[in-house]
Structures are given as structure tokens and as C-alpha cells.
């Protein structure tokens, strides 16, 4: 017992020595640890909803849909944004071999996103504000159903998250382009060409025309290109969400001040196009681009080799960026007012290119890994392979749904929510992030030891099988007509709901195991120490001895 308590407090084999962490390590760990905690809240919310599907009435309907409203806010912004932004805040300067533009701003970024996510969550938890994340006009301003104060709190939280996001974006772009003190002025042109991946395209063109490569050593490494490109979408997305948030706030303030505004002055279909254009930049833009970039980075770090077909990979990332701006109509295939030509071109054809761009990323990553065989099946490799596997299942499901024929019978069923979205997020994205966390573990913790590899293995299998099982059973219910955002009270799909809830419980247990493993590795003292100011006055990534 004493040994257990000692490990719990001080960590495994001495645990995390917070005093020895640089400000960069601390700010990264703060965001990542907070993101992992938010992930636990999202899993808990998800499991509560699965349980309500098994025993309807567990929550009253307004409460249930309030959980459903805050669930993606907590999962995407609270968890994924924090983990991804935290990791990229470390990786961009690490890969560019220069300090982060502003550590202070990085601290404000994670605080704003975490604070905003909590604020939004309170809007749902206290006031049961429940227009869901899609915010279809005029539902967010329907004060016949929702309390305007709840709306104000919820939207305020989202606005703060977006401000934090803009802080991250500024820091990343500034880090790529600024010239650090004492360094020779970095020319802007090669940096811009490289960050946008245009040098990759020029290299291909020069090769075709029999010339020497345009840039033998690109100014910006490939993972940074992916982060840069994804961040362009993050910026556009933040602007759109902020604009919609301001619009909703205007109506809320109008209602609260007794001067209600007429919601028919906003064209619902136009608003839906605008909102989905922006929101889709998360799903089809930054997630896919960031994920591709993370796979490339992990493949290079794991193998120590250059990426297979790296010029193509650079060009594909630019293609992915452009594709992500033109695919939003697949969300409006069920809207009869949407012109057929937009459904056909944007909704079907351009969307199908995501199969190509993501397929290229998968192929390049797998071939790069294969070129370095034999690899050890450590946590980095197995979580990476599982992440790739998740996207291999999730992407074709989306392409099928983005078909005018199939959309007519799949739209708003559980197919899109589970066979596509949750497979992509829980297996594809989350397992990729776990791989990234295990890869960055020695860099961020000054190489402390993991408490238990056995627990890490249990975490892996429970998460993978739980995620896969939940997607399978919910997908099967969709084939039987089960709608998302719908409470079935007569046991219509009970067997699938029970099995999905069990799989959800497996995922929750997996997260608890992971958390336990991290706490026992770091020690409570080390974990809390992350949130105290660093005692090292340096802009370096790691302490000199660890580096």
C-alpha cells in the first residue's frame, strides 16, 4: 500500500520532475493533459446518451438534447483542439529549430479554449440550451423553446474558444515566418512557397521538364506544411463560427432587451450553406490535413527515414486544402432548395476527392513504415496503425453518404454519426493522437518511464474494440432506419442500443486505464507541477541536459 501511495504521489521511478520542465514543455503538457480530461468528459456524456437509448427516460428530453449539444463542443474543442494545438505549438518550433513566437500567447490559448468549452458546457448543463452543434436557423434563436440566457452563455463560450483558436493561429504563422534574435534575416518568399507546398509542385514540374529540383531542401518540413495548411482552414472556420455566433448573440440580446428581431430576415438555406462551409472546414479540412501531417511526422520519426513520394505528399496537401473549401454541399443533399448542380459538383464529385487525398496519405505513410521494416510494435506504431485503420473505414462511409441516391435513405440516420463521424474521431483521430502523445512523451517529460505497458495494451484493445463495436452496432441500427437526434421509446432498436452501450462502456474503461497509467507515471505531484510556473528561464524546447 505504501508503495502504491508513493507511486501515486511521486510517480513511477521518481515520476515527472516538474521543476526540470521548460516553459515550452509545460505549456504543451498543460494543453494536452487538459485535452485528455475533456476527452473523458466527452466519453462520459457519450455513454450517458447510449444509456438513455437503452433506458429512455433516464434524462428528460430537454436535458438529453442539452447533453447532445455540448458533447461535440467538449469533444472537438475541449479535447481535440487542446491536444492538437498543444502538440503543434511544440512541434512547429521543434521542427523549425527556432523558439515559439510567444509562450505567453500559447498559455492564453489553452486557457481560452478550456474556459470557453466549460462556459459552453454550462450553457447546456444549467439552462438546457439545446440547438445542437448544427445550429440550423432559426433554432438557436427559438426562444419559445430555449432560455436566451442559456443561449448567451453557450455562444459566449464558443466565441471565447474561437478567440483562443485565433491566438493559436497567430502563434503558428508568426513562428513560421519570424526571424529569431541574433539570426540572419529569413527571406519570406521561400518560406511562403514552402509552407503552401508550392515548392513541391515546382519540384514535380521541374522534374517533368528535365531540370534540377526547384528546392532540394525545402525551407519548411513536410509536417509543418501540413500544420500550416490545416491552420488556414482553422482560421476560416473560426471566422465563420464567430460570425454566426455574433448573429445569434444579436438576436439573443434583442430578445433579452425586449426588442425581439424577426428571424425570417435571415434566409435559412443561405445561412445553412454559409455555416456548413465553415463548419465543414473542421471535418473535411483541418482534421484531414492535420491528421495527414501527423501521420507523415510519426512515420518519419518512427522510421528515421524520409517520406515516400514527399513532393506528391506536399502537392496533395495543397489539393486537400482546396478540396476542403468546395465540399460543403454534401451536407445539403437532402435540401430540395439546394441547386442540383451544387449537389452534383460540390456534394458528390469534389467530395469524392477526399477518398483520393486521404488514400494518398495512407499509402505514403504505410509505405514509409514498410521501408524501415522490421519495426518494433510499440505504442507509437500500434496506435498509428489503428488510427489509419479508423480512417480507412470512416472515409468511404462518408463518400457513400455523399451520394445523391444513398443520401436520400441515409441522411440523419445513425450511419453518418457512427459509421462515419465516430469511427473517424474515436478510432481514426483519437488513436492517431495517442500515437503522437506516446511519440512526444520522451520529449515532453524528459523521458520518464511509463508505469505499465500491460495497462497501455489493455487501453489499446479496449479503445479499439469498443470504438469499432459501437460503430458497427449503431451502423446496423441505421440500416434498420434508426435516426440520429431521436429518442426511441418503444424499444425499436434495443439490441443494437444495448450492444453499443456496452462498447461505449469499454471505451470509458479504456480512458480510465489510460488516465490511471499517466497519473501513476507522472505522480500527482508531477501532474500538478505542470500547472505551476517553470523555474527554467529559457525559450528552448527542452532542458539542455535532456536535449
Amino acid at each position: 500500500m505504501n508503495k502504491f501511495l508513493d507511486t501515486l504521489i511521486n510517480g513511477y521511478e521518481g515520476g515527472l520532475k516538474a521543476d526540470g520542465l521548460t516553459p515550452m514543455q509545460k505549456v504543451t503538457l498543460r494543453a494536452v493533459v487538459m485535452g485528455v480530461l475533456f476527452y473523458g468528459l466527452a466519453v462520459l456524456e457519450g455513454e450517458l446518451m447510449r444509456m438513455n437509448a437503452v433506458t429512455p427516460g433516464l434524462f428528460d428530453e430537454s436535458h438529453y438534447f442539452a447533453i447532445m449539444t455540448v458533447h461535440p463542443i467538449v469533444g472537438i474543442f475541449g479535447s481535440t483542439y487542446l491536444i492538437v494545438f498543444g502538440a503543434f505549438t511544440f512541434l512547429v518550433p521543434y521542427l523549425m529549430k527556432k523558439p515559439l513566437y510567444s509562450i505567453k500567447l500559447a498559455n492564453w490559448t489553452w486557457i481560452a479554449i478550456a474556459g470557453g468549452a466549460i462556459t459552453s458546457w454550462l450553457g447546456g448543463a444549467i439552462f438546457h440550451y439545446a440547438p445542437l452543434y448544427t445550429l440550423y436557423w432559426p433554432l438557436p434563436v427559438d426562444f419559445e423553446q430555449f432560455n436566451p440566457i442559456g443561449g448567451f452563455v453557450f455562444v459566449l463560450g464558443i466565441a471565447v474558444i474561437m478567440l483562443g483558436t485565433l491566438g493559436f493561429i497567430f502563434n503558428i504563422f508568426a513562428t513560421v515566418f519570424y526571424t529569431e534574435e541574433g539570426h540572419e534575416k529569413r527571406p519570406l518568399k521561400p518560406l511562403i512557397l514552402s509552407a503552401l507546398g508550392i515548392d513541391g509542385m515546382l519540384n514535380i514540374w521541374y522534374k517533368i521538364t528535365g531540370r534540377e529540383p526547384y528546392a532540394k531542401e525545402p525551407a519548411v518540413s513536410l509536417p509543418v506544411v501540413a500544420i500550416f495548411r490545416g491552420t488556414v482552414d482553422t482560421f476560416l472556420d473560426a471566422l465563420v463560427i464567430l460570425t454566426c455566433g455574433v448573429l445569434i448573440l444579436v438576436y439573443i440580446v434583442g430578445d433579452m432587451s425586449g426588442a425581439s428581431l424577426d428571424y425570417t430576415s435571415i434566409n435559412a438555406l443561405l445561412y445553412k450553406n454559409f455555416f456548413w462551409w465553415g463548419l465543414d472546414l473542421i471535418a473535411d479540412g483541418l482534421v484531414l490535413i492535420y491528421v495527414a501531417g501527423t501521420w507523415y511526422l510519426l512515420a518519419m520519426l518512427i522510421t528515421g527515414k524520409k517520406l515516400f513520394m514527399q513532393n506528391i505528399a506536399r502537392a496533395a496537401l495543397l489539393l486537400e486544402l482546396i478540396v476542403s473549401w468546395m465540399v460543403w454541399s454534401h451536407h445539403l443533399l437532402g435540401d430540395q432548395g439546394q441547386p442540383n448542380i451544387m449537389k452534383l459538383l460540390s456534394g458528390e464529385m469534389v467530395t469524392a476527392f477526399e477518398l483520393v487525398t486521404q488514400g494518398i496519405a495512407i499509402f505514403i505513410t504505410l509505405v514509409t513504415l514498410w521501408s524501415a521494416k522490421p519495426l518494433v510494435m510499440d505504442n507509437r506504431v500500434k496506435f498509428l496503425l489503428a488510427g489509419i485503420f479508423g480512417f480507412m473505414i470512416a472515409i468511404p462511409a462518408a463518400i457513400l453518404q455523399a451520394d445523391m441516391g444513398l443520401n436520400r435513405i441515409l441522411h440523419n440516420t445513425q450511419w453518418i454519426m457512427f459509421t462515419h463521424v465516430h469511427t473517424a474521431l474515436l478510432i481514426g483521430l483519437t488513436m492517431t493522437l495517442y500515437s503522437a502523445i506516446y511519440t512526444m512523451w520522451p520529449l515532453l517529460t524528459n523521458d520518464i518511464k511509463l508505469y505499465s505497458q500491460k495497462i497501455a495494451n489493455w487501453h489499446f484493445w479496449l479503445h479499439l474494440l469498443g470504438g469499432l463495436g459501437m460503430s458497427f452496432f449503431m451502423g446496423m441500427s441505421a440500416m434498420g432506419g434508426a435516426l440520429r437526434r431521436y429518442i426511441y421509446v418503444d424499444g425499436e432498436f434495443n439490441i443494437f442500443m444495448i450492444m453499443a452501450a456496452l462498447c461505449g462502456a469499454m471505451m470509458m474503461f479504456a480512458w480510465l486505464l489510460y488516465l490511471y497509467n499517466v497519473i501513476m507515471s507522472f505522480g500527482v505531484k508531477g501532474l500538478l507541477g505542470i500547472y505551476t510556473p517553470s523555474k527554467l528561464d529559457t525559450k528552448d524546447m527542452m532542458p539542455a541536459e535532456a536535449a
Partner: protein
Amino acid sequence: MEDSASVLGLLKIVYTIYVFSVMSLMLWFAKGVTNPEGKPRIVKPATFYMYVGILISVGVSIHIFTFNKIPWVETDFKRHTIEKDPSFDKSTQMFNIIAHQNKDKSSADYGKQEFVLPADRLNADGQLEIECHKYIVFDVESNDLTYGFGLFRQDNTMVAQMQVGPGTRNDLMWQFHKNGTYHIQSTEYSGPNGGRHMKIANAVVVKGCEEDDSRSMIGDK
């Protein structure tokens, strides 16, 4: 003629096979990449370009296949021509339905969300009666929220759906080729008062077909 049940049945089989194939591929890869025996084979750029070609072909082929095999896609594209054809009789083939939320605070049904079927078009059982093989248009109007309009069988499987946006055109053209009785229910969340509360059981009955929809019959109807 294909219906949603047969299309989804095929999708279920194809996707399950696909998922198992991907699982097998990843297991093979995981085993191979850790195997100390044998040198890694160099993958030629030609293989990569062939793979990209296959991806493009698959992405495009899915849509070409469904356009040719799923009958309602062509209907969607041609519905304006069909509606203008003299053989299309709006008085019997078009049904105007309203989706709305009760905003009358003095009403006992304040906040209630519902579909209102055209009273003059209902049969003695209070249903919309539809003739087999005829093009039918469900024209749904909303002046407040975004709803969904879905037709469902007795076993809960979906026949078809569309979104119902306020102030926009929401007209679904459909052909039924089997006898059956169908529910209307909202497929889009419009607040806690919508969803499951917006269901009209057995609202549509199709008659005159050679074949019955075994999933959607009530007795012989």
C-alpha cells in the same frame, strides 16, 4: 424495381466485406512490418500512380453506379420536366403538407410541433391514399423551424427523407411500386418538442401494385 430496403441490404453486405478486408490488410501489414525476416520491397512510383488511379475510378464509379441503379436519383434530376408533363395531375399527385410549431401561448398545445396533412385529400381512414407507380410530390412547407420529412415502413426502415427548411422549397417527388402503409415522421431535430413527437402513424397508404411491401403491410393493406 429497387427500393430503399434492397439498396440498404446491398450496402450492408458490401460495407461489411470492405471492413473485414481492411482489417485483414492491417493485420497482414502489422505482422509484416514487424517481421525481421525478408527485406522491405521497394515500392515503385508506378505502383503509387496506379493506386491513385484506382482511387479516382472508385470515387467516380460509386456515383455512376448509383445513378444507374437507384431509381430516385433520376427522378430528382428530372422532376421539373415530369411536373410540367400534361400527364402529371397536381390535384391528385401533389400533397401539400405543413410542418409547424404552435406559438399560441394561450393554447393548451403551446410549443407542440406537428405535421398537418391536407384535410381534403384524406381517405375515410384519415390517410393519404397513393396510386401505385404514379409520380407523387410531397410538398412540405415550414414557416418557422427546420424539420425533416421522412416516410417509414412498419418495421421502422426508411423509405425516403428530405429536409424541410423554413421559407424554402421542400418538395420530394417519389414513386411507390409496392402496396403498403407508411408512417410520416420528422427526420430532423427541431428542439425537444420535435423529433419523435412529430410522427403520424400509418399516414400514407399505397394501393394498386402487383407486389406488396412485406415490411410495411397491416393485414392486407
